[in-house]
């Protein structure tokens, strides 16, 4: 992946922070692309090995809050647990009406200071200008990160 862009993630101009648009054939694919695109802005994902797996379950009342929480949980993995996701191996959501969970299996490895050079201090994914919409037969997720 190029350090600024990938085929699935576009960075938009914003005066202070980083705004992403991630695309996929459906919501889950777009979210997986958003996840790796987000990590890639912190550390080039090519430098991350798929050495182990971590599970991630996120609940939320609506799609927006679930998506924002999911991406913030990834940031916690990176900045809090110092564990770097390289790939989203599994990503599902409950199809039942009453269910409001996202479940993911991530492949990656712990931070190795010798190989992993952090580029940005992404503080959080915000709700500001957040959007999920269908465009050109793709699902697009737009989100702004505070740097």
């Amino acid at each position, binding site marked *: 992946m190029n350090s*600024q862009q990938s085929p699935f993630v576009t*960075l*938009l*101009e*914003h*005066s*202070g*922070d*980083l*705004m992403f648009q991630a695309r996929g054939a459906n919501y889950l694919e777009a979210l997986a692309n958003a996840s790796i695109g987000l990590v890639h802005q*912190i550390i080039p994902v090519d430098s991350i090995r798929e050495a182990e797996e971590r599970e991630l379950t996120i609940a*939320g*009342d609506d799609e*927006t*809050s679930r998506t924002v*929480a999911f991406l*913030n949980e990834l*940031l*916690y993995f990176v*900045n*809090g647990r*110092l564990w770097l996701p390289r790939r989203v191996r599994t990503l599902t959501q409950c199809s039942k009406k009453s269910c409001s969970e996202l479940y993911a299996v991530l492949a990656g490895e712990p*931070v190795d200071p010798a190989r992993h*050079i*952090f*580029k*940005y*201090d992404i*503080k*959080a994914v*915000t*709700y*500001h*200008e*957040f959007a999920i919409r269908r465009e050109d037969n793709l699902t697009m997720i737009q989100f*702004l990160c*505070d*740097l």
Partner: protein
Amino acid sequence: MPSDHVSFEQIGPFRYRIRRSGRSDMRTDGIMFLNEALAKKLEVDESPKQVANVATLPGIVGNSLAMPDMHWGYGFPIGGVAAFDVNEGVISPGGVGYDINCGVSLTRTAFHLNEVKPKLAQLVNRFFERIPTGVGSHGALKVSKSDFEQVIVNGANWAVKQGLIPEADRLHMEDEGCLDGADPDAVSDRARERGFDQIGTLGAGNHFVELQVVEQIFDEKTAAAFGLFLGQICIMVHSGSRGFGYQVCTEYLPVMDKAANKYGISLPDRQLACAPVGSNEGKRYFAAMKCAANYAWVNRLVMKHHAAKVMVEVMQASEERCGIRLVYDVCHNIAKIEEHLVDGKLRRVCVHRKGATRSLPADHPLVPEAYRHVGQPVLIPGDMGRASYVLVGAETALAESFGSAPHGAGRLMSRHQGLKLMRGDDVRAKLAEQGIIVQARSKATLAEEQPDVYKDVEEVVKVAAGAGLAKPVARLKPLGAIKG
């Protein structure tokens, strides 16, 4: 990004208004302190819309305000100030930001430029070695778990007890470096985990430690009160509550999002999620926010402590000879309960300053005793190539901006535009030609933070002074900087 146009009009010198009548959901006008040049820059910026959004929140008192350095943020604009009635109004994590109590400290020394110049490179390099910088930086100070709890409850008082700063320094801090009512039970283990070994670390982005020289004094009497003289070497630190504060904000936003629904608060932007100040959700966030504010003060104090040690070692002088004393420490991302006179009535309000500095005039009881005859120091850092300013609080700020002034130059360009403008190595070389030595963990940071991506701080200071928000005292020129 496409801009939702919000129209505004000039209503007087340095004042522009967004009329509440322009949007059905606005409860009050938006007032932006600008001149023509700064107003023009907002044509491609979303921040006026954000000023209008803040004006829709319940219990807002007076106007929704923006300082001269305003620019597009998330939720509140950067440079946004809003006060909410403590009984009818709200508190919003989006009005404080993720970097709770991000702020600036200014430390003076007894050295003149002539004494320090031959050792400038050595000083900057030693600062860079001693103060951890960059994303995820850690390890500047080892604390026990019980000490950590003391840090978040007692703030600068803890630093005094540890001998990191003299008591006199604590008295020269906003709120004397501690917000009462910090409740550790309101803070998660995750926040502790993220913040535990980051005390005394700079972080990345626009944070810095700078060696500066006082190159111009505008107000001799006030400068003397602050202990500043021409040619004097000072140290400025800009940082905040690191991962601890980010985690507090991240965790409380969904809580406040639900609370907004529960209390029937309609939000134009979910990042403005909020709850009544007196609600359980509001009180709990406020108590956690105070922990992060106290953490941030200690964070800056530890960096100041390390910088002072470096000065002693490199200048081969005693601490007394170095004369290192804190001039002041201000927070610029915060919410506080304050009393303000509004339309002739004293109101208790929760003032949110998101990228704005408190500005209190002479004789105000919250100004440190040593400065009460002149007013509170207002610290406005610029970029690493031009200047930073010391101002002093003014009466007009109390009357019109809930005692607030700008907090910096304000970004003009995105980080991506910065990267395209000039490479990090070239930025370093260009600054070196101007006699400014810069050390950074990342070359990209240098490119993204180069002087031209910021508005000229001089323009911001002119407007702040013209509008009466604060009065210029001294201009400080950067000599060296460390960045993340």
